């Protein structure tokens, strides 16, 4: 039996784990005891990370669509076809008629190569990935305020913190190992403040749980800052030396006294004051946020408000003191770092900057486009309108993850040529012209960057299953076929190239990652030990900028026709669109069907029974789910997890996007819930009370 040290393929915590390999087969998983993130624990997904690897549903060989059906093909045949078709589309319609979706599930090396392929070989900037759907507002919002968008602290600093302010994150379920550290901090006496409309597990531990109305985060945060300013809790020194534009900001802040905020958010003015005082008075205050902040049309504003709050109090640039966006996917941080975005190269170097472009042009020996490319949603729109002709989708499943699925489906149908490269057949692959089987995390080398910027080595435990190949190999092969010779001998050679072109990754090489648990960027040179917390003496952009923001209500508030507010999210037993975890026995058994959470008061009013089937309808479509009545969710709101293809929540969600980040508003839309069957007349009321039946 051999054990292979690697990284969990699920969430952004980036837990260290070992795969146990016996006779070429992965027999088990175990946590790394000394790992700074998970320290001996794993969540249920991690403990079962090995199971899907050898699942019989894995894509086994390349497939080509012929007469409407996919048939088995050889790698040569499939890749030649892709090369020919993409080159064809490029010559006849221009490079910008091709769109690329890269993947937060793939390694840094693969994302880099995909980015290189897009820009150098295809000659377009149309590359994006699912970070658009979860954290593009972070990247945009924090870049403007600080100059770089990532968690400023390290996960293992959390237990030492004194105040934890968690907003819009269901941490124990979605970032379990960060949740673990938070509980540890609470045990050690830290004050926990949770702002979340739902009563999540972490909220059970909160000293203060704020249940503001969905979509009113800006107002809440502005209210808190208003109190901080009025009560003289501002870190004046910090604001003066390290930030700019405070005056303009203060102007707007005046519009948000606590009682006004109470009207907008439903949070008692008293609580707003309490939070403001607790958060600002303790230096070791960490602010955390996740998708509850970012997935709104005001996503960027929400993020900016968080940034303003930490600057106002000077809670940044120190250990145990900072602003911490919790990134979802295991490598969403890395995919962004690698420039799988329409407007930047690696390390957020803008494509519009001619000096940067020249650097890349010289390294890659190709002329590069300077205008920004299309985002995920723009690609679908553009495909829908027939302007985008070809798409190459690596490890993503827009047909379950994007909002307004009916629209996406039509867009995919209209494409002239669609390539899907994945480990499992996905909904999107049903529309593909070519399907390429990729290797899973256990079958390849590479690096993942977790949410605290820790770049960690992924190690190959078993050879690729069936005929699958690692994504980087496939891309390299394809690029060669398209006339751009690529001959990396291993993922480590790609990493060397990344280090060469990316200042923040300058000292990150595979050989340095072999021992220990990775390096946290920025790591500019080969001797640099990595950076546990950011913005120490100065912000990445120099001075931090206060950005004045105003409260904008959600795009689609509930009304008479659609009286309930729907918010979507994940649950701990599943992950995103479920391609991996729903093929893991224990995980799928746990929550085999989609459900809708509703407050008992609403359920009573609508006459709906716990565990009955209901129909949920929004302006865009409707799905059938099982009703789960629970006080976890406040009155007037309902919650649906979005992992289930039989009842895809994103049929309902609103595609309205943040004007800048272009992130869709997953967290708020208006719906109506009806019973699926006419409520059954109970002929005879039950004779006995269930409680009486308990036999002891």
């Amino acid at each position: 039996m051999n054990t292979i040290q690697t990284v969990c393929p699920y969430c952004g915590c980036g837990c260290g784990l070992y795969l146990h390999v016996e006779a070429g087969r992965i027999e088990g998983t175990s946590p790394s005891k000394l790992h700074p993130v998970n320290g001996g624990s794993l969540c249920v997904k991690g403990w079962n990370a090995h199971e899907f690897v050898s699942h019989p549903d894995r894509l086994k060989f390349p497939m080509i669509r012929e007469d409407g059906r996919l048939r088995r093909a050889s790698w040569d045949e499939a890749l030649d076809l892709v090369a020919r078709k993409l080159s064809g589309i490029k010559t006849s319609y221009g490079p910008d008629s091709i769109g690329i979706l890269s993947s937060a599930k793939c390694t840094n090396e693969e994302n880099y190569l995909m980015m290189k392929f897009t820009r150098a070989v295809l000659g377009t900037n149309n590359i994006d990935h699912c970070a658009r759907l979860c954290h593009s507002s972070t990247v945009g919002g924090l870049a403007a305020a600080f100059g770089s968008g990532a968690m400023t602290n390290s996960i293992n600093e959390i237990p030492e913190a004194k105040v934890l302010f968690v907003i819009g994150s269901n941490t124990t379920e979605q970032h379990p190992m960060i949740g673990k550290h938070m509980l540890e901090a609470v045990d050690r006496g830290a004050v926990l403040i949770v702002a979340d409309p739902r009563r999540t597990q972490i909220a059970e531990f909160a000293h203060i749980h704020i249940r503001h109305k969905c979509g009113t985060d800006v107002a809440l945060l502005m209210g808190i800052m208003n109190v901080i300013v009025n009560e003289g809790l501002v870190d004046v020194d910090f604001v003066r030396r390290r930030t700019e534009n405070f005056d303009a900001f203060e102007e707007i802040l005046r519009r948000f006294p606590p009682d006004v905020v109470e009207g907008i958010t439903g949070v008692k003015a008293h609580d707003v004051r309490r939070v403001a005082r607790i958060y600002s008075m303790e230096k070791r205050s960490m602010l955390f946020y996740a998708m509850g902040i970012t997935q709104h049309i005001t996503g960027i504003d929400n993020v900016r408000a968080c940034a303003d709050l930490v600057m106002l109090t000077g809670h940044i640039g120190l250990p145990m003191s900072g602003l911490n966006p919790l990134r979802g996917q295991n490598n969403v941080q890395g995919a962004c770092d690698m420039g799988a975005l329409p407007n930047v190269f690696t390390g957020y170097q803008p494509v519009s900057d001619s000096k940067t472009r020249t650097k890349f042009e010289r390294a890659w020996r190709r002329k590069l486009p300077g205008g920004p490319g299309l985002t995920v949603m723009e690609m679908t729109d553009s495909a829908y309108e027939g302007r985008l002709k070809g798409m190459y989708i690596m490890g993503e499943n827009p047909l379950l993850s994007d909002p307004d699925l009916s629209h996406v489906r039509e867009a995919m149908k209209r494409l002239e040529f669609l390539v899907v490269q994945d480990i499992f057949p996905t909904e999107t692959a049903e529309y593909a012209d070519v399907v390429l089987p990729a290797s899973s995390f256990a079958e390849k080398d590479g690096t993942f960057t977790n949410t605290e910027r820790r770049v960690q080595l992924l190690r190959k435990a078993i050879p690729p299953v069936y005929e699958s190949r690692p994504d980087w190999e496939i891309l390299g092969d394809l690029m060669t076929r398209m006339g751009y010779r690529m001959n990396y001998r291993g993922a480590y050679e790609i990493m060397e190239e990344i280090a060469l072109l990316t200042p923040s990754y300058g000292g990150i090489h595979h050989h340095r990652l072999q021992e220990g648990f990775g390096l946290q960027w920025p790591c500019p040179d080969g001797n640099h030990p990595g950076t546990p917390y950011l913005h120490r003496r100065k912000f990445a952009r120099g001075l931090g900028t206060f950005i004045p923001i105003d409260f904008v209500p959600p795009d689609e508030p509930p009304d008479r026709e659609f009286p309930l507010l729907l918010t979507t999210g994940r649950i701990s037993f599943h992950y995103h669109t479920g391609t991996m975890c729903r093929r893991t026995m224990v995980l799928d058994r746990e929550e085999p069907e989609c459900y809708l959470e509703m407050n008992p008061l609403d359920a009573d009013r609508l006459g709906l029974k716990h565990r009955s089937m209901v129909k949920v309808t929004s302006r865009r479509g409707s799905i059938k789910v099982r009703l789960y009545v629970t006080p976890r969710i406040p009155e007037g709101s309902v919650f649906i997890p979005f992992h289930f293809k039989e009842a895809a929540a994103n049929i309902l969600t609103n595609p309205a996007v943040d004007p800048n980040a272009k992130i869709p508003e997953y967290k708020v839309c208006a719906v109506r819930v009806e019973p699926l069957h006419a409520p059954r007349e109970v002929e005879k009321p039950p004779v006995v009370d269930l409680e009486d039946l308990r036999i002891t």
Partner: protein
Amino acid sequence: MKSEWVLSKDHLSYWLRQLRNERELIGPLRDGGKDILFRTVDMLHEIVLECPSSLPSPKGFLFPQYEAMFSCRGLSLSDGSDGKREISDLRDRTRRVIFGVRSCDVSAVRLLDAFCLGKLRDPYYEERRRNTFLISLVCNNPDPTCFCLGLGTGPYLEEGFDIQMTDLGDRYFVQAGSPEAVRTVRAMNFFFRKPRKVDYEDQYEVFLSSKARFRKRINLEGPRQAILSGKVGDDFWQEVTDRCFECGGCSYSCPVCTCFTVTDRINPEGIERARLWDSCMFKGFTRMAGGVLPNEKRVQRTKRWYYHKLVHYPRTTGKFGCVGCGRCAVACPGKIDMARTATKIKGLALKEEVE
């Protein structure tokens, strides 16, 4: 028959090399980030003897997390033959020797033996167990989480081991506990010599000093009594449960837990029936047809876990279903674990008494 010998430290690797000729040698090795894991030993000098306890326990060598049970080829549903021919039993028959096992883990294997090799013998476990030979070391560096001392499952054992070795500085005191172990040592007796008085004295001293190193002294009998006398109410279990992440780590990491589930996979090569670790901490563990969940509330599951180990195990076997290895304390993200829970129960019971 006294099956006790002394082995000079210089001879250890020779001896292990001999053992390796016949068996796969498994030992505690450091992996990547300095974690200790049991795996196949390539270089004998890489074995770490002075190390914290491994995560996971060596349970996986006898009861792996994923184990193929049968493969079934070319089976047509309507074929009238008896069909046995197409089904092959995938029992693992690798002969293994696991070196450097801790006493608590040996005690756990004994509990597994009693459970799996009882009236109805689990063939997969049986085959692996028959082919596996455990060499345990008297523990001289318990982790802060260890509490085998109070349970009599460590740091050294009086009986129940295959081979137990005590580190006497320059040599090992070797005790063989099973006929097979005696045979193994005898077959290579040129490495070993008979113990002398001083060896016994030294061994006793090591026993004493290893006992002195424990930070935790936890007795599970008190908590058991408290539970039986009804002092531990549901509100206590609710409080414990509030911190549960439902990760299953407590069961996965526990060397005594044996629950599994079975799954059929239709591979291109044929159908495979496999079993995999499961945990009663999941609500789906008891899911019944039509989605009925008898243990839907988390608190019912936590309670079940502790009741099994603290109440039902002693009732049926006379022993606790815990050997004090402390792994649940490491694995649990919510910091719920046997030691902590037992301590809390004791506190609770004491409080009641005072009141």
